[in-house]
């Protein structure tokens, strides 16, 4: 194996393109090093992207934020502006692992590792985040919802990497929230994760909503029917139970040691509903 730590995106793309299927990006390494050690992957070259400025920077952009793909969970948590604007995305990032894992784990790694249970992915999908991808043919934007294609599989072509993730500007009374269910209080993988991002009008009526679920299918899902269920409502009981039903209906989970299909399907509805209520409270506080 070869290790390279280029300073520029161009150099990183060059190294990856040259390596073809035998190259891997290294961000925080909290998935990659585990896989290297288990020999589930045996790359010829590992390209450490942490010395590239864009990948390590959070900057405001057009009322939203551009987050470098290798910025760590701990750094996101310490960014007051980001935390205030996108509390759901930040709380999802802060759920990853322990303090030690937080010091390294990135959004780019969480996304590109393509685990169906990745915590930040439903939150980013609910936020309508867009990945800025760079490769041998230049830059392209791809909605985070379309980056993962299946367990361990992404839509990235050979030589491509995620440079940054863009969160859009929020309208005044909008807010997001992320909840996950795990059997313990820390250090476990989601049985279900639910991200909600919604907007209220002056009367507290919901004008837009995006609901996304994790760990209930081969990849995180946007559930348009769940969002539609609360649009036009004040999130009354009827609307919230419709949202929960739509969320459960979208699930196509597996049985595993963390939860059965039936259990995951039920919990997805409950969690989506609770996340919507948290987002509603947050949006209401933002007059």
């Amino acid at each position, binding site marked *: 194996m070869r290790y390279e730590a280029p300073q520029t995106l161009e150099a990183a793309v060059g190294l990856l393109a040259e390596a073809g299927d035998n190259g891997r990006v290294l961000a925080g390494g909290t998935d990659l090093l585990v896989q290297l050690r288990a020999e589930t992957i045996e790359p010829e070259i590992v390209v*450490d992207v942490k010395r590239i400025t864009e990948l390590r920077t959070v900057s405001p952009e057009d009322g939203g934020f551009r987050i470098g793909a290798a910025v760590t969970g701990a750094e996101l948590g310490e960014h007051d502006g980001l935390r205030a604007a996108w509390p759901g995305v930040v709380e999802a990032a802060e759920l990853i692992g*322990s*303090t030690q894992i937080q*010091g390294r784990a990135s959004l780019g790694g969480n996304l590109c590792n393509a685990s169906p249970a990745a915590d930040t992915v439903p939150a980013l999908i609910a936020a309508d985040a867009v990945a800025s991808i760079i490769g041998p043919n230049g830059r392209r934007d791809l909605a985070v919802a379309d980056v993962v294609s299946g367990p361990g599989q992404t839509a990235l072509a050979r030589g491509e990497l995620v440079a940054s993730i863009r969160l859009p500007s929020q309208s005044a009374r909008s807010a997001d929230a992320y909840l996950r269910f795990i059997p313990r209080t820390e250090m476990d993988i989601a049985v279900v994760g639910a991200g909600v991002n919604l907007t209220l009008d002056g009367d507290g009526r919901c004008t837009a909503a995006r609901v996304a679920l994790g760990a209930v299918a081969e990849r995180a899902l946007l559930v348009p029917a769940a969002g539609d269920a609360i649009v036009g409502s004040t999130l009354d009981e009827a609307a919230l139970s419709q949202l929960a039903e739509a969320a459960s209906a979208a699930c196509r989970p597996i049985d595993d040691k963390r939860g059965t299909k039936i259990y995951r399907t039920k919990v997805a509805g409950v969690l989506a509903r609770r996340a919507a209520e948290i987002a509603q409270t947050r949006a209401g506080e933002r007059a």
Partner: protein
Amino acid sequence: MSKCHVTATINGDEVEYLCEPEETLLDVLRDQLFLTGSKEGCGSGDCGACSVMLDGRLVCACLVLGAEAQGRKVETIEGMAHGETLHPLQEKFLEHAALQCGVCTPGVLVAAKALLDRNPDPTETEVRYWLAGNLCRCTGYDKIIRAVMDTAAEMRGN
């Protein structure tokens, strides 16, 4: 395959080493630099026995490549005491008997120091969450938490 030539600052000293590209920082510390205080419990980021500071961040040295430390600052348990003078956390761990076999202890101490350096007055809940990535098979955690809380109180001067 060619080795990586790395210069890093470890516990305040500039150190040079050669490592294999796939070698972890933990292996470099233990096997090449003979800083064997950092332990390997799991090798997969779950136990925290390998906790070190990398450029001021608490990380698992088993999930860092040795090559990544180029130009960076690493702090390990070996840098915690000043000569014969133990850090207050080390004193309190002895006083409270917050260790039995001691395998988790270096990692717990490095992690606890990272917490107290940024938050001198943590609640018990904050301490427990901060240390959730440090597993201990012996103590049942209670004495560890008490030792950290007591150190924090002492260092604040009450």
